[in-house]
């Protein structure tokens, strides 16, 4: 690989980009003009609006049904508010109020306490949905608070008490946060989001043009017949996208910073920003470079895949949207970075950014964040280079498209798109109906969920479409020599899955109630047999019908591996439990393999049931000495168990593989 050639590509791409008026306009002119206009104009309108509201004052109706010295004082103070007009309460008050002519109605009533004191109640009726009325209410409250102070102090004096008594207890807050930290917490909230948005927008503005655009203008072949290697071309283009992303970010930040400073004037935030040393800004910018590289790599692979600018644009949109949504995580106040979240792309940078601004982060977060980002980066670049070497991708003609496969199977029930739609529907149903059912009575709810939400729909669909349900669901008796291996697979798989769970717990300590959910279930039910039925047998049958029987069919037309992985992934997501994602995925892989390989769903049903039973039994007999080594606890988990479990799993899977002849099942078509 010759870096000089990559640089030649880079320089040429930059030159072309700078010649593109549209890109220049979007990257430089718009931010430099828009922000000042936006901030200054907006700031001006806002302050002017407040002034207008002040000047307009308010009409309020008042009624004093007490008529003592104190209530008179309250009325007096209300009258004293600038620009307020007080109207007496009468018949028309209600209509005026409804018509919006009155901003508030104030009535003063009184009552006598058990000790014989006369106490007053000032009732303020107003429509808080209007901003103006909120302002009015604030003024009324202030005024009444003043009346309260005056009256109490007078009352104290009357009884020969020192009015200072009013201040018997005072609250005084000392904010120990340094100015930098305070600023950091403000900025930490909004800045990551803004920066991520700008980065991805900047990257997207050139990404689609840089490969898909070359395809569209038929210049790609010219480039490909030069003696440069594909890697060099990819690298040069990749650097261009990074530059565009960073340039967009810097220009926007610069323009925004200045405009904000102007708008906020002497306010703390603006002071903070201006006081922030330039090196601080540079560090923040540098921190965004890994993310810029990730966006560049991902967007470029998409661009390479697309046939033309338009197609690239439509693929880039969702990526941008998802990135922005992930970036929004910094708005959520209580979420902080930890070793688990540090693995999630975009989210990790947003949170790390926040943590760095208030100076509270660990080196491990930093390392995981950068490490995982770079790993993804490398993967995306590798993919792009691979795509660059795939002529069917580089020279896709107009007829065939990425959805070729799906389109080819138009009119066929079992295609990927339908599978995705079905899964999405079921996920929504599960989320709402499932939690509703389980909310009433957990155990009954669990069984209802299994039967009604999980198993019934596939059976109904097969009936409605008059499909051969037995064949599709693979309701075919397994052979004995297959079944022999299943318990070994199930048990070793369950142990490995629980290891994975422990690993998750280690990285990201789970909430305490979480771990004994199952234990709670065990205590709840009177009979372990009922429990086994609800939590082991029912899922073993119903979930298998849905996933291995039905769902997997949607993806089998691609290839077996894809079908297994997608089914397992859906299976994991379906459990709506982020912590259990990894272990469930592992189980899903094993179960999908068992069915697809043997052509009999009973294998995975048995395995699934055994797996869940094992979990219940362990929870139920957690106290028993013989189970101790299997359990986590204060003594710590027995890590070495992973090794024999992995060995047993591999051996039994191998055995299963051997005894099952490869059955090439045809894709069943909708007849």
């Amino acid at each position, binding site marked *: 690989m010759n870096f000089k050639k990559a640089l030649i590509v880079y320089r040429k791409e930059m030159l072309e980009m700078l010649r593109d008026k549209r890109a220049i306009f979007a990257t430089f002119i718009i931010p430099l003009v828009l922000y000042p206009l936006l901030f200054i104009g907006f700031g001006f309108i806002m302050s002017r609006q407040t002034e207008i509201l002040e000047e307009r004052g308010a009409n309020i109706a008042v009624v004093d049904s007490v008529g003592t010295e104190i209530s008179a004082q309250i009325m007096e103070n209300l009258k004293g508010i600038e620009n307020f007009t007080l109207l007496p309460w009468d018949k028309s008050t209600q209509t005026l109020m409804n018509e919006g002519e009155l901003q508030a109605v104030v009535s003063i009533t009184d009552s006598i306490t058990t000790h014989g004191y006369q106490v007053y109640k000032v009732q303020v009726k107003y429509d808080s949905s209007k901003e103006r009325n909120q302002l009015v209410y604030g003024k009324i409250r202030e005024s009444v608070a003043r009346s309260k102070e005056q009256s109490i102090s007078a009352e104290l004096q009357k009884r020969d008490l020192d009015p200072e008594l009013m201040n018997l207890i005072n609250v005084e807050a000392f904010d120990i946060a340094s100015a930098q930290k305070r600023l950091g917490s403000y900025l930490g909230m909004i800045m990551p989001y803004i920066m991520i948005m700008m980065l991805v927008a900047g990257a997207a503005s050139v990404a689609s043009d840089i490969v898909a655009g070359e395809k569209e203008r038929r210049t790609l072949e010219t480039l490909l017949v030069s003696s440069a290697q594909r890697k060099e071309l990819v690298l040069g283009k990749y650097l261009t996208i990074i530059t565009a992303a960073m340039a967009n970010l810097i220009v926007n930040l610069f323009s925004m910073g200045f405009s904000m400073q102007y708008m906020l004037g002497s306010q703390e935030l603006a002071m903070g920003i201006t006081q922030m040393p330039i090196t601080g800004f540079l560090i923040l910018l540098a921190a965004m470079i890994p993310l810029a590289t990730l966006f560049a790599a991902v967007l470029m692979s998409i661009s390479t895949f697309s046939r033309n600018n338009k197609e690239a644009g439509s693929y880039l949109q969702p990526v941008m949207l998802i990135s922005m949504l992930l970036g929004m995580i910094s708005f959520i106040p209580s979420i902080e970075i930890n070793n688990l979240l540090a693995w999630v792309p975009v989210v990790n940078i947003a949170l790390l950014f926040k943590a760095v601004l208030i100076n509270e982060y660990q080196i491990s977060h930093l390392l995981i964040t950068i490490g995982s980002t770079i790993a993804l980066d490398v993967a995306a670049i590798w993919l792009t280079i691979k795509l660059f070497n795939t*002529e069917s991708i580089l020279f896709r003609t107009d007829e065939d498209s990425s959805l070729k496969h799906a389109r080819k199977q138009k009119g066929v029930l079992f295609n990927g798109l339908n599978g995705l739609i079905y899964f999405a529907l079921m996920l929504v149903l599960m989320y709402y109906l499932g939690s509703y059912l389980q909310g009433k009575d957990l155990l009954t709810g669990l069984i209802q969920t299994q039967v009604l939400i999980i198993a019934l729909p596939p059976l109904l669909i097969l009936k409605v479409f008059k499909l051969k349900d037995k064949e599709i669901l693979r309701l075919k008796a397994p052979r004995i020599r297959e079944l022999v291996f299943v318990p070994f697979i199930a048990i070793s798989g369950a142990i490995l899955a629980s290891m994975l769970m422990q690993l998750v717990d280690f990285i990201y300590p789970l909430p305490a109630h979480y771990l004994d959910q199952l234990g709670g279930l065990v205590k709840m039910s009177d009979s372990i047999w009922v429990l086994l039925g609800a939590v082991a047998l029912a899922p073993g049958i119903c979930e298998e019908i849905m996933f291995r029987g039905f769902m997997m069919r949607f993806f089998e037309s691609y290839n077996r591996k894809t079908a297994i992985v997608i089914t397992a992934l859906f299976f994991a997501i379906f459990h709506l439990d982020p912590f259990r994602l990894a272990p469930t995925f592992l189980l899903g892989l094993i179960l999908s393999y068992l069915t697809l390989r043997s052509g009999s769903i009973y294998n995975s049903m048995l395995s699934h049931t055994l797996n869940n039973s094992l979990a219940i039994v362990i929870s139920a007999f957690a106290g028993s000495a013989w189970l101790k080594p299997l359990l986590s606890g204060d003594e710590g988990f027995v890590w070495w168990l992973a090794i024999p479990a992995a060995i047993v799993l591999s051996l039994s899977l191998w055995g299963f593989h051997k005894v099952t002849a490869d059955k090439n099942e045809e894709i069943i078509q909708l007849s």
Partner: protein
Amino acid sequence: MIEVLNLVKEFPKKDGSLFRAVDGVSFSANDGEIVCLLGVNGAGKTTTMRVLSTVFKPSGGTATIQGYDIVSQPEKVRQNLGFLSGDTGLYNRLRAREFITYFGRLNGVSDADINARMEEMAELLDMHDFLDKKIDFLSSGMKQKVSIVRSIIHDPQVMIFDEPTSGLDILTARNIVSFVRDCKANGKCVLFSTHIMREAERLADRIVIIHRGMVLANGTLEEFRAETGQIDLDDIFVYYVNQSNMEEELSADEF
């Protein structure tokens, strides 16, 4: 020097089956020789050339350019190859000079050599007027000239030109034809394609007639005349096409 042996290129069709655009093509072209691929639209000329340029991978067979294998040594092949086709477009936002310089650098040519060569070619092809204009504003003949300079800026030994004169007026076409002759005089190996018989007649040392992805005949014009008894290349071409159709019918009848 180009050597092509049993080259096959298949494309997947919509229904999933394969379509053979190039079906066992063999020929060779020596240094100091101009070889013409002659064939009707869709015969497989461009596809053959794209495989030789390493842009497409062959589905079968092999080929070498200057002794370098097109599959295992693609970079070496491209270094020794100047390639031009209807699909090698130009960057509209660059000036002609920048465009040529870019590809010169990408091919590892020093700036001094690029400039010298560009100067020489501009003289030859009469390009001085538009060398510093944006490509966007050039006519298609001007663009073709820029493309030619782009394709040979690294002074390759082998040149493959796919219909280099298509869409050009007679003067420009002559200009290009004389340039191809110059290349031959300098000992280069040139492979070009066309479906214009006149051009093939005038320019080629050897003609490879290609039809439906297969080579029907390969030889000099004299050899063709002797074999077919026809004078005109038009008639020779039709003769070979008819012959292949008849053979096909015969072989179909046998079953």
